């Protein structure tokens, strides 16, 4: 068997195909690192500036909490550019997106050129190109009969071919990863921590498991189909579906199949809710003023503020429901795309390096926890908690012939010494937690492997070698 592995490797390592693979892969790794370093430094500057500003002057009305850019973004970016740069926290735990740095929404959407992209698209294609001729090609050349004329079982031949291709794929991957790491660590030496290296090793294992699917697929198709060109055509069709079509259609499929009201329909409900929850209360207040229930102007304003805040709860709930619906729709999209091993790989890789939606959820959950501390601080300094609303209002009435403006209340800024302000600390989830969330996707990849491996072995046993 070693003889076969050796022959396969020596044959392919000198082939034009492998050499171009090696060169192209290395070049792409270098380009991707270069791009990452630049983007990371931009994001870091933005982050540092923001953090400094917040530390100098923390707000009790509108606190900007910036999210630290992911130093492992070069492995799997996870759509960082679609995420907000951080969260604006206002009293009573309301979170809204922080405007990020300049981002041109008119530019063409192109996928991020990170490691995950290289593995899931470029290397998976190469895995197919390296295997599609392995059985059918030998059949065409007549060498398959020659090999099998020796005392070598067919599954062993297949395993030898599998192992040699995996070794061939590992070479450029490991080389590229090392070059990338060295390049990046020149400008960012801080990434070389044990935990980060563990995460990267995890990604390497994940990548090999993922690419193994394509190697097995190539071997399977190559055994099943007689002509090499038809093998390649079928493999490329499958590749297009797995790698490009399924992951990209899942969004629109989720849109179509999750029976959610559209954004417009949801937005139309906001008006009536505000009408019910806020205006009617305020109108009621005006009647109560006429009925002489209030003694002073202050009392009226206090009551109006209370009613307004009470009414806001319904509005907030509505927005929250919409947000959850969008979230569940995007989860549905993710689950639909999990039919494709490419999506499984993408999500697992994101978990490995702590990026993507999970990272944002973790960040926002931490802020939710922190908001209690924040509220306590405001209570202790300002004395009252005023939540910000989804809309503001302004009306007026008369009290005892005097003009009274009723406006939505705003949280107050504390002017005193804020050196004891409890700042938010952005912590990275422990690796074990990330591994746990990657586990399911990783198992999916393993199942694909097992399935294809058994099919391939079955196929070569039954293969007609004449």
């Amino acid at each position: 068997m070693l003889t076969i592995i050796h022959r396969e490797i020596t044959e392919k390592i000198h082939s034009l195909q492998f050499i171009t693979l090696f060169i192209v892969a290395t070049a792409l790794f270098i380009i991707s690192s270069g791009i990452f370093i630049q983007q990371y430094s931009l994001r870091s500057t933005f982050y540092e500036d923001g953090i400094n500003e917040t530390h100098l002057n923390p707000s009790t009305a509108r606190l900007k909490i910036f999210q630290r850019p992911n130093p492992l973004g070069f492995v799997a970016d996870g759509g960082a550019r679609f995420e907000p740069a951080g969260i604006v926290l206002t009293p009573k735990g309301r979170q809204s997106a922080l405007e990020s740095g300049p981002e041109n929404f008119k530019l063409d959407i192109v996928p991020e050129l990170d490691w995950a992209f290289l593995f899931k698209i470029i290397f998976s294609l190469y895995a197919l190109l390296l295997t599609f001729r392995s059985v059918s090609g030998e059949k065409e050349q007549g060498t398959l009969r020659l090999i099998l004329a020796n005392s070598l079982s067919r599954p062993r031949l297949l395993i030898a071919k599998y192992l040699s291709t995996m070794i061939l794929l590992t070479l450029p991957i490991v080389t590229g990863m090392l070059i990338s790491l060295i390049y990046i660590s020149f400008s960012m030496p801080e990434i070389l921590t044990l935990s980060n290296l563990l995460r990267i090793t995890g990604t390497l294992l994940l990548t090999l498991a993922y690419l193994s699917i394509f190697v097995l697929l190539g071997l399977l198709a190559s055994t099943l189909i007689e002509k090499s060109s038809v093998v390649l055509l079928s493999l490329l069709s499958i590749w297009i579906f797995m790698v490009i079509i399924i992951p990209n259609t899942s969004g629109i499929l989720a849109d179509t199949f999750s029976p959610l009201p559209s954004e417009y329909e949801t937005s139309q409900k906001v008006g009536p809710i505000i009408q019910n929850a806020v205006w009617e209360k305020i109108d009621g207040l005006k009647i109560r003023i006429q009925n002489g229930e209030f003694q002073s102007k202050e009392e009226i304003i206090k009551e109006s503020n209370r009613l307004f805040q009470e009414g806001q709860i319904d509005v907030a709930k509505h927005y929250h429901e919409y947000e959850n619906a969008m979230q569940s729709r995007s989860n549905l999209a993710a689950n639909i795309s999990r039919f494709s091993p490419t999506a499984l790989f993408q999500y697992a890789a994101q978990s490995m390096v702590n990026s993507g939606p999970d990272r944002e959820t973790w960040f926002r959950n931490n802020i939710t926890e922190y908001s209690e501390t924040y509220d306590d601080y405001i209570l202790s300094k300002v004395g009252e908690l005023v939540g910000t609303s989804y809309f503001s209002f302004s009306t007026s009435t008369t009290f005892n012939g005097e003009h009274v403006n009723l406006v939505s209340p705003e949280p107050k800024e504390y002017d005193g010494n804020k050196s004891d302000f409890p700042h938010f600390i952005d912590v990275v989830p422990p690796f074990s937690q990330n591994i746990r969330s990657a586990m399911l996707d990783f198992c999916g990849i393993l199942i694909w492997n097992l399935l294809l491996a058994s099919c391939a072995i079955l196929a070569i046993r039954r293969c007609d070698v004449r």
Partner: protein
Amino acid sequence: MLKTIFLRELLEYFKSTKFLIGFCIVLFLMSTSTYLNMTEYVQRHQDYLSAVEKVTTRGFSVDVLREPQVMSVLIQGKDRKLGNQLEINYMRIPVETSGYMGGFASQHHRFLAGFQAIDYAFIVRVVMSLLVIFLAYNAICGEKMQGTLKLALSNALPRDKLILGKLLGGLAIIGIMLISATLACLLLLMINPQIALQGIHYTRLAGITASSALYLAMFFCMGLYISVLVNKSGTSLMILLQIWVFLIIIYPNLSVYLAKKIITLPGKEQLADQKRAVFEPYQKEYDINRKAFHDMIVSGKRDKNILINNFNITAQRAAMNHLVDMEYSQQMTRQMHVGHQLGTLSPAVLYDSIVQGFARTDVSAFDRFLKEVKIYWDQYIEQYKLRYTDREAYKNSDLPVFKSSQQSISVIIADSIKPHILLLMFSVLFFVLAYTSFLRKDVR
């Protein structure tokens, strides 16, 4: 002679497995994606219509709505991404749309933002280009391996006729695939009662089909060239796939990064500084008027003059801010254009910009919308002013209706001439290369 070769080529394609498989995949993808996109479009359009109906009621702000383009079913471009609603008032003319929910809530679309749209343009750009490569890669070297090339050339057959026949055969098959795929999409659009196609849309669709044909022809010529250049079919396919990956997947990506590097956009703070600087001469007046207005509100005593002055200076500020914002918006467009220019060598980038132009789903359609919004804002402000000067007239007048102009097809064609010429040049270049190297090729 030419006819004989041409007919044989066609027959060969029709009989080959690769064509049949490819054709079925293309038809399947085209019809399912069109169906899905159509459902999505109908919803978006319905929302737009309901929103427009609501706009007649006048408040402090008025919503300007951008109509979703019918052709976005086939070529989504940036139609969905750029949003539909823009809220204007006398204090603000934004240059970015907000979703119907406004702000952060609308941003939740970002969960789905990373997905590329699977539409007609995508299928032509990615799937069909790959299929065309599959049809072309062994055009010459395959025949050489079979021995039929020698046999054919042992006759009084000029070589140029042979390669010309191959080209024509390939173009015909591309045409057949493309036209049947387009007709399938068109049929789906036509049988849907909620979609009304007009004459102009057919013209646009014809333009899109023609450009797609040109784009695919380029890949065919490239395949032909490589198949003349190398002797083994396997090598030819390998080279073509590498080129394909580079041109379709990697290069467009890099051009966007480079564009970001070449044109740097000013930050939000710089923008605010600019706005401040431009408004500087009027700032004092503005502050005074704002204060007077504020005092008036607190006191509850209506003063017509204060209202008018405040309105005028605020509207002026909005208009001036808008100028700065528009400049920024133009800068964004420039960055995108630079990206396209850098991507000129990639047919995928050229193709996208052409068909998005035809479908009106490109950025220039959006920029035109922004200009129209400003014109509308001027009308709106004129009328809003009546509120303070002539309340009676204001009450009797209707809210001006926002109209977006249809861009004539000739302008679109004129805009797309350059990328068309480039695509044509690439095709011709590859064919000439294929032609000349075939004339000199060692056919033994």
